[in-house]
């Protein structure tokens, strides 16, 4: 077995003091070093902007345009791939180290058949083993069929999960010693995510390949990796055995990340602010501006790595202080249920291109209630949200707002109805017209939606108040969308939704494009707003964690049908529908297995018991 050869050789991949910078010398990644034994696995965790993809590509000897290696070595099979010539690099890639990029489906050659994609790697990197047997073996590794009908399919004829697995199969075809997986689960639904993680785990066991996993998702790293490296703004802040690192996180940033993970029944705690981009990184601890336990010298002194445990290093001199509070369980909430529901959907049917996307869907939301719509991609949940908003025409059914019928088309709705129903959309980066400042857009919304009496009031104070409610600084009013981070934009989008006292806010995957720390901020904000202002919330999501951490009640939508609906704790505790069961089973925190996240989840369940007799 090849794996045995690897074992005898020592390290599969060694990175020594690697620094990568822009051509302008602004550092993207600084002083990263680790060693990966054959068959070992390492997770590299970081938020967007942390430089993790740049690092991942450097592992296979690639630097993009405008980027250069400042110092360091990446040793694969005893060779420094960074110092190797083009021929040698080409020989190392694929055979010694293979790379599966972020969003692998879109990186598959659309004009090559599945079988050819795998065969290509074999033919080029392992011609001696080229043949249908080897192709079948590679497909088998990731549980893909290897019959000729399947091999003849083109990537677009495969599902997202199959495409992801095909990319892994191709990368593994020549049996490399190291496999680099960049965000292997991003963009996949929960059940498929789970499946991919399982496949990768099996793969490791069967081939003994060493795996480097790049992810923003702590749960993925927990499931897949023996060791973890936490990257913040290009610097390693913590590094150690995964279990130890997640259980007893030493760095305030790591602790913040763990606290920010959205889990059913838990109030995630967000971290405000964002990591500085390469050209704005100064001396001192880069996390210090966001750090709740920052000391004065943190801003000046670059912290040196300190030992926090066996093979566990942390770059924080104050790591023992642990000022961050644990994520808190959800508390009790009083609701009035006897009045007319804010939103009452009866037998809604929507067709799109001749296909029924929603079939006889009924749903109600009470004043101040947070209702979640949970479903896989393609289940019709977004359509439902857009239909309520009036952006999608319905075929049949009735939607009432506070008892009065809502016109199917937004263009026909009176101002009062427009004001009442607001929406926060998935991608914060396109939520605002880049041509106008945030303030200009918010002012326009206020002018158009608020009743004329209020509209007569001076703009500026109301605008500032609005921004304050979503905890944005006053300067945000004069900023263009491109000058704000995703989290800030999403809060501005919430501000826009709140501008004129809405009755209902529809959040369509409002957090899925955000980093974990920011997602938590938004969830917190939404919770607080509903509690303080009595706004109702319709949260549309595929993410059980988000749904579970925010909602009072959950509707489960499967292929256009509501298959189950129940109060959140009830549904989490005893799912009835097949889909809900599978979703719950797919999460490391809700299913058995996670030592870090599952414990808290059990804790919440206890509290729920007291909530709902």
């Amino acid at each position: 077995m090849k794996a045995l050869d690897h074992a005898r050789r020592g390290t599969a991949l060694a990175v020594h003091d690697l620094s990568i910078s822009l051509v302008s010398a602004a550092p993207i990644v600084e002083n990263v070093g680790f060693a990966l034994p054959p068959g070992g696995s390492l997770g590299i965790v970081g938020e967007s902007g942390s430089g993790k993809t740049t690092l991942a590509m450097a592992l296979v000897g690639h630097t993009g345009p405008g980027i250069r290696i400042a110092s360091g070595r990446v040793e694969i099979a005893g060779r420094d791939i960074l110092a190797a010539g083009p021929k040698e690099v080409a020989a190392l890639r694929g055979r010694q180290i293979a790379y599966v990029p972020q969003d692998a489906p879109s990186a598959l050659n659309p004009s090559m058949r599945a079988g050819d994609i795998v065969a290509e790697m074999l033919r080029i990197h392992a011609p001696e083993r080229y043949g249908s047997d080897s192709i079948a073996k590679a497909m088998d590794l990731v549980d893909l069929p290897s019959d000729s009908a399947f091999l003849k399919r083109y990537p677009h004829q495969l599902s997202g999960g199959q495409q992801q697995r095909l990319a892994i199969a191709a990368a593994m075809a020549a049996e490399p010693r190291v496999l680099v997986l960049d965000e292997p689960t991003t963009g996949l639904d929960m059940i498929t995510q789970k499946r991919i993680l399982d496949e990768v785990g099996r793969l490791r066991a069967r081939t003994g390949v060493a795996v480097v996993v790049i992810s923003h998702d702590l749960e993925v790293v927990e499931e897949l990796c023996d060791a973890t490296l936490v990257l913040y703004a290009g610097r390693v802040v913590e590094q150690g055995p995964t279990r130890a690192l997640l259980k007893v996180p030493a760095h305030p940033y790591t602790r913040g990340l763990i606290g920010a993970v959205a889990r059913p029944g838990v109030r995630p705690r967000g971290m405000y602010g964002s990591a500085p981009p390469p050209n704005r990184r100064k001396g001192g601890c880069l996390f210090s501006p966001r750090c709740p336990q920052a000391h004065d010298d943190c801003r000046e002194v670059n912290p040196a790595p300190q030992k926090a445990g066996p093979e566990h290093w942390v770059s924080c001199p104050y790591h023992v202080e642990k000022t961050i509070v644990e994520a808190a369980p959800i508390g009790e909430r009083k609701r009035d249920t006897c009045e007319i529901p804010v939103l009452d959907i009866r037998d809604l049917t929507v067709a799109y291109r001749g296909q029924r996307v929603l079939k006889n869907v009924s749903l109600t939301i009470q004043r101040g209630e947070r209702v979640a719509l949970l479903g896989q991609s393609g289940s019709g949940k977004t359509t439902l949200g857009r239909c309520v908003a009036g952006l999608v025409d319905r075929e049949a059914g009735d939607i009432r707002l506070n008892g009065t019928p809502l016109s199917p088309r937004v263009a026909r709705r009176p101002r009062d109805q427009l004001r009442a129903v607001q929406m926060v959309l998935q991608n914060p980066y396109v939520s605002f017209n880049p041509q106008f400042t945030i303030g200009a857009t918010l002012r326009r919304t206020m002018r158009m939606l608020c009743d004329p009496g209020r509209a007569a009031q001076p703009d500026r104070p109301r605008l500032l108040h609005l921004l304050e409610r979503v905890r944005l600084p006053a300067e945000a009013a004069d900023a263009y969308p491109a000058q704000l981070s995703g989290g800030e934009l999403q809060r501005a989008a919430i501000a826009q939704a709140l501008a004129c006292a809405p009755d209902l806010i529809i959040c369509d995957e409002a957090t899925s494009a955000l980093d974990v720390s920011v997602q938590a901020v938004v969830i917190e904000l939404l919770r607080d707003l509903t509690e303080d202002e009595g706004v109702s919330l319709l949260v549309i999501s595929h993410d059980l964690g988000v749904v579970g951490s925010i909602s009072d009640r959950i509707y489960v939508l499967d292929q256009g049908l509501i298959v189950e609906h129940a109060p959140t704790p009830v549904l989490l505790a005893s799912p009835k529908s097949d889909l809900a069961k599978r979703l719950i089973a797919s999460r490391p925190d809700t299913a058995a297995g996670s030592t870090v996240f599952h414990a808290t989840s059990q804790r919440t369940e206890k509290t729920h018991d007291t909530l709902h007799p």
Partner: protein
Amino acid sequence: MSLKSIFGANTMSRFLLMRTVSGAGLVLVVCLATFVAVTLLPGDAANFVSGRSASPERLAEVRERLNLNDPVAERFFRWGLRAVQGDLGPALTSPRQVSEIIAPRLRNSLILASIAAALLVPLAVATGALAGALAGGSMDRGLSVISLVLLSMPEFFLGTLLAYWLGVKWHLFPPIALFDAAQGPWSNPAVLVLPCLTLVITNLGYPARIIRANVAEAMSGRVVLTARLNGIPERRIVWKYALRNCLAPGIQVISLTLLYLLGGIIVVENVFQFPGIGTLAVEATQQRDLNVVLGLVATITVIYALVMLLTDTLIILVTPKLRTLRF
């Protein structure tokens, strides 16, 4: 056998049927528009038939002969019925049939256009692909400047220069396309050189630039990056991962260029006095032979529809995603 049983099973032929119907509709609408425009002209066709020496009696007679007194709709219907059978009616300014006039001219033009296309397409693809694959390099920049200059050169200007330098001054090729009308340009192939050269040079810039942009985009795209990161040899990357996936936009721009070529031919033929549809179009419009103009429009529209159909078919054939699509 029902249509569905013929076309239902195979999505490709169903698509072709759809496109053919839409193409036929296009031809119909374009011809109708031209017919109406031509009919609504000040002074009717009879004037142009008889010209300066037309007496009122003669005008009436001609009007009768050409059925100009019938309603427009009826005339179009009758014209259309005959046109489908390849009969484009009588010319106004000549005793001959329009199809008889157009046929040899069309043949000449098609020969010219085909040779130009046969040179242009590989040249455009090669330079575009080369510049795209080496995007950012000095070769790319050089080609980009050259293509820009070519792009901005009016056909008549380049044609005049070539005719003068290569034809009159250096006696390399005949500057005027004189050849035996019955046999077509093959009777004196040398006359094709300068018109072809002009067409190729002036039409090269646009497709080369578009192909370059597509290839450059593909070369910097995720598919190519991933292939590189997995050690696929560069040559194979260029062919199988970049160029292969640029085929569809390439075909699109090439077909567009061929249609532009059809337009450019009007100028080039007039520069070199090449007896094709381009010179015919100018003659017919100058002499207001509206039946010939109509015939030309119909012919060119059919060619356009055919090229579009072919383009779409090819694009579907080379794009797996489209090829396997269920319509």
